[in-house]
C-alpha cells in the first residue's frame, strides 16, 4: 500500500506514544527518530510524554537489594566518564585513535555481561583516570608522571578483551572491587569503606597461589572512603588475591590475618 506524504506524517505523529514507551521495534524506532530530528513539535510532544512515562516508572520504585549500590559505586570508580562536548573544537582528542574500545565485565557476583565503553585515546584515559581518582591533585609533576604511568597500566587492564570484574567483602569493613585480565597478567584493585589504619600501618595486597605468596603492593590512603585504584601485576594461574594490614613500609610475608581472600 502506498501512503501519501500527508498520511505518512500523520502516521509518524501517532507513533509518539508507542515510542515514548519504547513499544516500537528497532526499525520503527530508527524511522521515528529520523522524523523527530525534523519535527520540533513531535520532539516537544515526545519530551512531555517521556516525563509522563518517567512517573509511571517511579511509581514502580522498590527497595534496592542489599549491596547493589556499593557494587555500582565501586564499578563507577573504575569506569571512565565521557567528556562533555567541546564547544571550541570539533575533534577534541589530542592524539591517537578515535576508535572506542568496548570492554566486557563479566562477574562472579552477577553472572552476565555489562558493557562499558572506555576511551580509545590513552592520553585522554590517563588524564581522566587521574582526575577522577584525585591522583592529579598534587601540583608535583613527578607525581603526575607516576600517576599517568600507573593510569596507563590501569587503562590497559580495563580495556583488555578478557577483563572481568569481581567484588569481595573485606573482613572488618569495606568492599573490594577488582577488574582482572588474565591476558595482561594484572588486576586493578579498588576498595570502598576500608577502615582507616593508624599512620604506622597500611593495607598490603598479596597474590597467593601455586607460584607462592608474593607481595602485590601497598594500598594508598583512602580518600572520601575510596581506596585505589592500584594495579597489581605478575598474576599467575591459580592465584588468589589477599589483603592484610601490615607495617606502613610493607612486609615480605603476610604477618596478620587475611582480611580478604578472593579467588581470581
Amino acid at each position, binding site marked *: 500500500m502506498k501512503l501519501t506524504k500527508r498520511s505518512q506524517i500523520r502516521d509518524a505523529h501517532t507513533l509518539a506514544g508507542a515510542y515514548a514507551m519504547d513499544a516500537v521495534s528497532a526499525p520503527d524506532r530508527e524511522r521515528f527518530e529520523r522524523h523527530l530530528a525534523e519535527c520540533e513539535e513531535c520532539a516537544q510532544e515526545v519530551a512531555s510524554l517521556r516525563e509522563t512515562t518517567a512517573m509511571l516508572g517511579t511509581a514502580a520504585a522498590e527497595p534496592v537489594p542489599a549491596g547493589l549500590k556499593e557494587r555500582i559505586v565501586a564499578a563507577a570508580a573504575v569506569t571512565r*566518564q565521557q567528556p562533555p562536548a567541546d564547544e571550541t573544537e570539533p575533534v577534541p582528542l589530542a592524539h591517537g585513535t578515535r576508535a572506542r574500545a568496548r570492554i566486557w565485565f563479566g562477574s562472579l557476583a552477577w553472572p552476565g555481561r555489562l558493557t562499558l565503553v572506555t576511551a580509545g585515546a590513552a592520553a585522554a584515559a590517563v588524564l581522566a583516570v587521574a582526575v577522577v581518582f584525585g591522583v592529579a591533585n598534587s601540583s608535583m609533576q613527578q607525581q603526575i608522571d607516576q600517576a599517568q604511568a600507573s593510569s596507563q597500566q590501569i587503562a590497559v587492564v580495563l580495556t583488555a578483551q578478557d577483563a572481568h570484574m569481581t567484588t569481595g567483602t573485606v573482613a572488618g569493613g569495606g568492599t573490594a572491587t577488582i577488574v582482572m585480565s588474565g591476558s595482561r597478567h594484572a588486576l586493578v584493585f579498588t576498595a570502598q569503606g576500608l577502615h582507616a589504619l593508624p599512620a604506622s600501618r597500611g593495607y598490603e595486597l598479596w597474590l597467593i597461589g601455586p607460584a607462592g605468596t608474593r607481595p602485590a603492593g601497598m594500598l594508598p590512603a583512602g580518600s572520601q572512603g575510596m581506596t585505589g585504584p592500584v594495579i597489581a601485576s605478575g598474576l599467575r594461574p591459580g592465584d588468589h588475591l589477599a589483603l592484610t594490614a601490615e607495617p606502613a613500609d610493607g612486609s615480605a610475608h603476610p604477618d596478620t590475618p587475611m582480611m580478604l581472600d578472593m579467588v581470581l
Partner: protein
Amino acid sequence: MTASGSQEPRNRARPAPAAPAAPPGTDLAGQIALVARGEATAFDAVFEQIGPSVFGVVKRVIRDPAQSEEVTQEVMLEVWRSASKFDAGRGSAAAWVMTLAHRRAVDRVRSVQKEAERERRVAVAEIPFDEVIEAVESSLERERVRRCLGSLTEVQRESVTLAYYRGYTYGQVASLLGVPTGTVKTRMRDALIRMRDCLGVPE
C-alpha cells in the same frame, strides 16, 4: 524540582517539561552536574534518589531479580559515564535516567527472550494492572499515578501497562488484544496524553 541555578550545565534552549512530582529539597539535575565532574559522593546521592525507581521499573519489565540488578548496574553506570551529556534544556533529570532505564530493560528482554516464547507466556498471563498497583505504598506520587491510570479507559490502560510495565511492542500488544496495530498506536498516544494532563506535566 527545585531550581538548580548555577549548577545547570547548559542554557535552556526551550522550556523544560519539568517533573512536578520531584520530592522537595532535592535536585537531581544539580547532582548529575556534579557527577559529570567525577564526584563520587554526588553519584551516591543520585543513586539514593533514583536507584529504587530504576531498579523497580527494570524489574517490572525483566522480572528476574538477578538480571534486574545487572541491568540496574548498567543503567547507573551509563548515568555515571554520560552525566556530561545530560541536557537540562531537554527534559528533567528523572526523565533522562528513567528513559535510559526503561529502554535498556526493554532491549534486554527483546534480545534475550525469543519472541515466540514471550508471546506464549503473555497469552496466559493476567493483564498486569492490578499487579502493578498491588505493591503500591501510600506515596503521593504513586497515588497520583494510580488515580490517573484509573482515569483511562480500560483499553487505554491495558495498552499502557502492557507496553510500559511489560515491555511489549505495539505490534505485540495489538496481537494480544486482538485489535489492529493502528488502533493500538492511537490508543497509546491518547492514553499517554491523558496521563500527562492528569499528572500535570507541562505540554
